[in-house]
């Protein structure tokens, strides 16, 4: 069966079954690794479906067929043939096929531009660190940018409990384990945004620990990287300036960093370019000024048990200014 046909079936199945937005669906691969697995899935599903149908037919025949056929099915030959020989053959083929898929990713050359990607799972967000070719290091959070068509090595670690890094459209998942660095290789095949989510139960707000991966053309990625590595943008306007002052006065800098300002905290996500990200609070809220305000004042309700205390100290207009400032950090 050709790959194209399989993909058509896969696509049809997807539309039929999973409905609307496939940005976290393994049925809509946008990476080399995920595509291979998707083909493997459909091959196994079709073969498994045929075997299942076969067993059911045999079972029905064993009960309702005529005497001749029934007596033919009643010997130990059925058991040795269908229960021993057949599975050994099928499983051997599948085993080899599985290894081929597994090996296929192993030999891919790493991206040659010398950029390293490190992701640390933390209760309940993702610390994303880039090391550029010159050894400069800068942080972001809950969003990963990668170049399309390059094999990218993601260095996965955890700061606390077990997490698992999973972007179904790009590749399978890999756990983040204390004391270890696991390396996941992904190769995006098309530009676009995919959603990922923590796949290893990590306590409390495990359900609310998502992130986005933005796959960009290599030159776009370079441009993005150049901007992302720089300090925060200049503050424009009186309200935003007030918001910036509130940010520092309220002690937000104890946990958060905004490069180019006195805020150097390392406990929480780096907010230098938070306004340019796709979402807030690890995929929980959209990135709007209104969402920033809700989050600051009411985050324990939106994402229970998260490590940021709720800030109810601000007046409504203060909150608006603070949100405006944060949202402006493009």
């Amino acid at each position, binding site marked *: 069966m050709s790959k194209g046909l399989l993909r058509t079936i896969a696509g049809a199945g997807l539309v039929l079954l999973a409905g609307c937005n496939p940005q976290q669906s393994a049925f809509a691969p946008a990476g080399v690794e995920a595509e291979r697995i998707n083909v493997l899935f459909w091959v196994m599903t079709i073969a498994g479906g045929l075997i299942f149908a076969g067993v059911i037919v045999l*079972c029905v025949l064993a009960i309702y067929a005529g005497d001749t056929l029934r007596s033919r099915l009643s010997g130990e030959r059925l058991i040795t043939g269908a229960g021993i020989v057949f599975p050994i053959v099928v499983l051997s083929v599948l085993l080899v096929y599985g290894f081929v898929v597994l090996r296929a990713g192993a030999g891919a050359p790493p991206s040659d531009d010398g950029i390293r990607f490190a992701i640390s799972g933390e209760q309940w967000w993702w610390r994303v660190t880039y090391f550029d070719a010159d050894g400069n290091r800068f942080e972001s959070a809950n969003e990963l940018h990668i170049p399309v068509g390059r094999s990218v090595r993601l260095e996965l670690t955890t700061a606390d409990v077990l997490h698992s890094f999973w972007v179904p459209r790009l590749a399978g998942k890999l756990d983040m384990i204390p004391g270890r660095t696991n390396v996941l290789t992904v190769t995006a095949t098309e530009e676009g945004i995919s959603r990922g989510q923590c796949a290893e139960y990590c306590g409390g707000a495990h359900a609310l620990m998502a992130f986005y991966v933005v796959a960009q053309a290599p030159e776009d990625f370079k441009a993005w990287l150049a901007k992302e590595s720089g300090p925060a943008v200049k503050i424009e306007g009186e309200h935003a300036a007030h918001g910036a002052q509130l940010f520092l006065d309220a002690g937000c800098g104890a946990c958060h960093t905004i490069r180019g300002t006195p805020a150097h905290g390392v406990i929480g996500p780096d907010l230098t370019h938070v306004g340019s990200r796709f979402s807030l609070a690890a995929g929980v809220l959209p990135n709007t000024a209104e969402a920033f305000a809700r989050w600051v004042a009411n985050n324990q309700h939106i994402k229970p048990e998260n490590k940021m205390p709720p800030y109810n100290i601000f007046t409504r207009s203060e909150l608006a200014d603070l949100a405006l400032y944060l949202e402006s950090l493009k």
Partner: protein
Amino acid sequence: MTQQYPAELPNKGPRPKEELEDLERIWATPKGFKLLTAVNNTVVGTIYIGAAFLFFVLAGILALVMRTQLAVPDNNFVSQDLYNQLFTVHGTTMMFLFAVPAVEALGVMLLPQMLAARDLPFPRLSAFAIWAYIIGGLVFFSTILYDLAPKGGWFMYPPLTLTEYSPGDNADFWLLGIGFIEISAIAGAIEIIVGVLRTRPPGMTLARMPIFAWAMLIFATMIVFAFPAVILATMLLELERAFGWHFFNATYGGDALLWQHLFWFFGHPEVYIIFLPAAGLVSMIIPTMAQTPLVGYRLIVVALIATGFFSFGLWVHHMFTTGIPGLSLAFFSAASMAVAIPSGIQVFSWIATLAAGKTRIRMTVPSLFIMGFLFIFVLGGLTGVMVAAVPFDFQAHDTYFIVAHLHYVVVGGMVFPLFATFYFWVPLVSRKMLSERLGRWAFWLMFIGFNTAFFPMHITGLAGMPRRVWTYPGYLGWDLLNLISTIGAFTMAAGVLVFIIDLVRNFRFGPGGPENPWNAGTLEFLPNDVYSTRSIPHVTSREPLWDQPNLAQQVREGLHYLPNAPTGGRETIITSVIEAKPQYVIQMPGPSWTQFAAAAFTAACFLLLTVKAVAVALTCGVLAIVSCILWAWQLDRPDQGEVDIGGGIRLPTYMTGSLSHSWWAMVILMLVAASLYISYIFSYLYLWTVSPEIWAPGGSPALPPLTYPLGSALLLICGSVLVHWAKKRLPAAGRLSLSALALLVLAAALLAGAVGLEVLGHLQTGLDPSANAYSAMVYMASVLTGQAAFAVIILCAFACGGLVARRLDRKRCVTFDNAALLYWYTAAQGLCGLVLIHGFPRLIG
């Protein structure tokens, strides 16, 4: 088929009337609240199944709450914190409080009937295990009502379950509560192994054993080897939580993956532990419904053994995504696929049996549930092969695809056969059959509901939904699938409700149900009463009721073996392991409060430890030990001389040495202890590979001088020799031997000294158990040997008591033999520990 009937029946009729009256009096079930003291397998077995079913319903209700929460996106029906407790308690209850106990309960209830034994060989041990489980289980489950329930998932992975991330007592309820229920499962397993191997009726060779007995034998053997791993893991984690001994904390050289290895070394066999007995039940019901012997009996036995064997070689397939090396992936992937073959053998044997029947299978309610089982289980098996393919598992792991797969396997593989069992074997314990009409409703609601609930989850998972999420956003395309699953879950629950209505309307506990309503071929359908069968039949084939005409009549009239109670107490025939030749008559204990008190105090001890009420807990622990001693004291009955069981066979009523059932139980207990210790040795070496830098002498204080381990070893060896001498100096009946007494006391003291010396040596080097993983592992060896030594010392004290009371002599020496066996085992384990702790670092350093 050649049939060898005994030339004539073992006993002549008509039997005197008093015999039946004696049996009825001796085996009478205690009435009223004294029911708690009952030990007869049909009574406690029914209570056991009832309790397991209760937990099934309770955990099912939790599932409905979760499905309600997930019915629509962004739902707030339950809170995040409660949801995390719900799925933890749902999984834990279903696995530990429902599935394993339910199949063990079926073993307790059905095995003696299938083997036509009057009871299992250790009736009070089963009663103890059952009450410990019921009390502990109810307290554990009730934590969900007080917001105290554990919330680390049923797998309890550290570091999330370490005190740093899980403060409070929630996790301890899991570790201590479930930990000791595992001990009760082991007690049941020992009972079942000895029961299957030694209480079969004369003539029932291994090759004539009902498949269910084979399945239970393998089931129990798997428990013996699998459960100790999780017991060790539980001990290590509780020690880390309570005392800061770092086994799992990477900062101190521990490793979170050690837990996963130990947990899944238990956890994967666990799946087959649940499935094998259910498969055994299917292999009993299908031939009956098709009215033809099982096709491929020998192949099925081989398949059961192979499943048990393979299941220990695939635990890593739960860890494919942890980043382990490719070679391990390859090995465990192959093993995971290989285990499908024995299941295939069984499926096609059942199909062949269906085809072999002269007439078509009768579509009764049990048959329907078996058909449902086949459908669901085959699908679950196929998705199992899919996730055994490593790359696919990278996607499917920890998603709803796995939720679907595992429910297909365990609900299909175990719950459907269990319901078939309820309908099929109910006449053994109920005066009325269950309703065919309600049963059909129950089946169709459950079958349709199950598939509606779980089939869509395969798609939900691959559409990106991870497991254990309390809510999800509405824009990812998961809402409709989840709503369908929720509707299915409630439909299935309606089926269970119909079954409960059927129970209420028709289940009436007590003997006198319809006799062999399905025309089955196996012995459990012989006429039954509280004493089981009136006489124990001589068996000449696999389906005696089909092949030996009038067997039921002969058995009822007492024309087979042991139609009476020659020792005046409860008894049954012990036969040889392979050929089932009668060897002796075992005297068994009757109702008592002792095992119930022991169970209640054991449960209290563990649960009070959870809430850190240490003083009260230890008091309960002491009371539990006292209860056990009283219980064992009553067990040790004197020899009643030889008795006649019929057919010219005269059997002894007391047995020592390797023929004794007690020797067998002790040897199996030693296997349990040995598996625990091997898990420990694995853990020690595993942590060394993870963090060799903290091992002595480089990263930790140098080992104590060799005089310490050599001294400790000398004490162990001398103690073992003393026990051997004490055995030779046992007195003649009715006499007291002071030298035997003194030797035994001295031996116990040497054992305590050996453990003490080892600990002292390490303390003197300044090694602090909470320093790092190495130091914790060093002291752990002494904890394990100390624990065994504690049991040995109690057994020695018990034997000393027997000597003083002149109940222990050269012939009546089972209690001494048990103490000696465990002593020698403990000494051997202690020596292994010394070699590991003192030899290994020197070898690598």
